[in-house]
């Protein structure tokens, strides 16, 4: 439902309209392996964002002419549900969605050993169920976890976070209202262990000095996201381990 825009997005004490500090991210919740059919999947909630990512493959590629002789073809579809935004969004892919599908694919490909699976397809689907700013970053974060969940060999997890400028102040992880009412938004995706920035976009205006500060804010955010991704992946396997132990105990008891 609609939110009313407050008079000021950030008050005189540097508190943002949703109660966050300037360098504070929204609450992030990541769940791993929640879709039955997919080879890997993840669900992320970041503030009011609710996004699903599913991975199929490596699998046979159709149409065949898309096959690459030396590596797997990573294909990516970023899509928003018609009910995910205030005004209904037509389900046909918009130009924005086409561009985001491309940059998301290019942000994840450096992390994958695609050369292990020549002539196959790795298909990634990102569905935004509810959008509240920063969906491309949250989508990348979830997608990278889904790739790991599918057991695809990877160089590092890709963690994404935006930073920007709102009412003259530099902030991390902009919500939709801050993005629209703010001066600049810079989404970044990052592989922390390789110091590699794999997605970098910006709109809005920043001086050279602000540019550097915003980039660093976003990278700090990415590092925090990386921790959460790791914890989410661990949690899935720890849960499986616990379950295995319980079953073993039950079997022993039955004997």
């Amino acid at each position: 439902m609609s939110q009313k825009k407050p008079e000021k997005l950030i008050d005189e004490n540097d508190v943002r309209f949703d109660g966050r500090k300037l360098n504070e991210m929204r609450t992030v919740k990541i769940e791993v392996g929640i879709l039955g059919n997919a080879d890997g999947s993840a669900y992320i909630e970041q503030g009011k964002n609710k996004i699903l990512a599913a991975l199929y493959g490596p699998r046979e590629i159709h149409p065949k002419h898309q096959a690459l002789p030396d590596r797997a073809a990573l294909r990516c579809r970023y899509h928003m549900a018609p009910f995910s935004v205030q005004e209904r969004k037509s389900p046909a892919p918009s130009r924005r969605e086409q561009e985001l599908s491309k940059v998301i694919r290019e942000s994840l490909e450096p992390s994958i050993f695609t050369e292990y699976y020549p002539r196959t397809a790795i298909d990634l689907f990102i569905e935004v169920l509810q959008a509240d700013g920063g969906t491309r970053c949250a989508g990348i974060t979830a997608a990278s976890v889904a790739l790991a969940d599918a057991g695809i060999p990877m160089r590092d997890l890709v963690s994404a976070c935006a930073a920007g400028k709102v009412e003259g102040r530099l902030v991390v992880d902009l919500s939709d209202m801050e993005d629209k009412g703010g001066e600049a938004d810079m989404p970044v995706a990052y592989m922390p262990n390789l110091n590699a920035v794999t997605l970098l976009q910006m709109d809005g205006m920043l001086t050279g000095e602000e540019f550097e500060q915003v980039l660093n804010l976003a990278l700090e955010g990415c590092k925090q996201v990386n921790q959460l991704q790791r914890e989410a992946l661990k949690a899935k396997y720890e849960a499986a381990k616990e379950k295995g132990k319980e079953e073993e105990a039950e079997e022993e008891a039955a004997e």
Partner: protein
Amino acid sequence: MSSIMAAKVRQKRIAQLIARGKRLDGREPTDYREIQLESGLIERAEGSARVRLGKTEVLVGTKIEVGEPFLDTPNEGVLTVNAELVPLASPTFEPGPPDENSVELARVVDRGIRESKAIVLEDLCVEPGKKVFIVFVDVYVLNHDGNLIDASALAALAALVNTKMFNYEVKEGEIKIKPGYKPLPIRNYPVAVTFAKIGDKLIVDPWLEEEHVMDARLTLAAEKDGKICAMQKGGYGYFTAQEILEASKIAQQKAVELRKLVVKE
């Protein structure tokens, strides 16, 4: 085809040279190719410009029509940027609906113009919420020899500067066209500067064969006061934070040079 798809040997040569800070065509890492700019060659268009960047050639035409504003900006005119990778421009371009490359090209050009608030869109409102002018910027790639983004952004800016609006008056809610023209209201001059990363080196204005070798691409748009107003990374490689900061500094300098081609002070 052999001249288009750089042979593997040649690709290796390009990469080896760049590792030593040299380029196959003799340019320095931060040199642009020769740029030629011509404005106003399409009389039917409200504005037009052609940029030749080495052998890359882009034609941009603008048209102005009357239409409805967006709901969230009822008092502003509308900017629409579209890009066509015309099949005559390259053996790799095919007819059909815009693919992701042309969508990305259009959106990166759009972002620079929009975020620097280059066009005074408030002046293009006829009747708030009902009637505004729509500025169509159509990017037409005529020959693809690399770095379409910079050539297109420069041609788009030149075409906007060249755009003339008809005089009009509003009578009973209808627009009556009057004789004479005035320039489109422009307040900022964004310029895009694109880098290619090859190995661990950055070069500006990659031509086609360098694009075949590059790991990743980074475009920064700078506005007239030197602020950075748009950015886009492309390609399957990555950049380090240090490389991004280095690129932002070079882009700010290069943008000043490029802007002089369009805006004579």
